[in-house]
């Protein structure tokens, strides 16, 4: 306990501003069934020397290094470079690899282009398959059963709840990524961005736009809680 207090007393100026008070980050309550199973399997694998702590830490670093900023870079490049866009739509994985994004999980990637005639929406009804190499971890709502079930039954109603009204004459294609390929939506480039640089364009592209639940707009609203994730 003494050590913990000491830890909490130190200067908090490490990487992010801490101008807001918050409760101590601590584990409360008993770990769940799958948490216990994960710990048990991990400890057994380490104990039997099948994997080491360094490999686990390394993989966590790999996962942490993937964020929607990578996907945004891909989208912005596709908007400014017609040849890249063509290659991206022909083979999502190799085009992303051109930009230095590796596919550590050995998945293929299909990039689906939104147009004024077609709107694409991505879901995984069986679990939470997601293009992690280019977007990082999926948002919590993507994993909830309500989204997973309703996205394939009433996509227009689900989109409306995200504030996205799709006109009746626009075709909706819902891609259920359950098997082995991952999907990324290439959103429409917003009007009024003709003079934007590639970096300025990338800053507009949000995670949710690349899942297909919202369009890209000139004023991207901050994610809930004010933190971009």
């Amino acid at each position, binding site marked *: 306990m003494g050590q913990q207090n000491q830890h909490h007393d130190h200067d908090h100026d490490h990487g992010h501003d801490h101008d807001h008070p918050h409760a101590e980050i601590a584990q409360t309550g008993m770990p769940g069934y799958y948490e216990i199973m994960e710990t048990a399997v991990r400890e057994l694998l380490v104990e039997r020397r099948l994997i080491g702590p360094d490999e686990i830490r390394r993989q966590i670093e790999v996962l942490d290094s993937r964020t929607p900023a990578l996907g945004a870079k891909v989208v912005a490049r596709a908007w400014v470079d017609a040849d890249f866009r063509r290659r991206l739509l022909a083979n999502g994985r190799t085009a992303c690899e051109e930009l230095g994004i590796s596919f550590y999980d050995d998945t293929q990637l299909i990039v689906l282009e939104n147009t004024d005639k077609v709107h694409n929406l991505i879901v995984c009804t069986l679990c939470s398959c997601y293009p992690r190499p280019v977007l990082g971890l999926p948002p919590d709502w993507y994993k909830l059963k309500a989204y997973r079930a309703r996205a394939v039954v009433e996509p*227009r109603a689900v989109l409306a709840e995200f504030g996205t009204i799709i006109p009746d004459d626009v075709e*909706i294609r819902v891609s259920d990524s359950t098997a082995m390929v991952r999907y990324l939506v290439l959103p429409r480039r917003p009007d009024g961005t003709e003079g934007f640089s590639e970096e300025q364009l990338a800053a507009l592209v949000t995670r949710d736009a690349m899942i297909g639940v919202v369009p890209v707009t000139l004023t991207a609203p901050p994610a809930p809680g004010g933190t971009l994730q």
Partner: protein
Amino acid sequence: MPSPTPAHGGRIPGVVPADGEEPAFAPGDAVRIRTLSPVGHYRVPLYLRGKAASVEAVIRPAAIDNEEEGYGRNAGSRRHYYRVAVPMTAIWADYRGNAADSLRIEVFETWLERI
């Protein structure tokens, strides 16, 4: 989109592909997602079983059958996945939206039959 050409580039006369090496279906083919009830690991959602679909693309390269892989049986299980399209109105009788709205999904070859 992947083209319906042989799996490994051009075709040399006299070279015979093994069973499953070449895709059984091509873009535009009409297929039905089979109604199977396997025990164990599978990746075809219940809501699509028995539905008629149209092949949109062959997914390359050929892949191991996940259902076999789940039990460590990989040999000879390599086949193609197909991205198929099913009209929403064919899945849900009371679907509300554009009649062209559709569901897209990749389905392993063993789960498709020609119609």
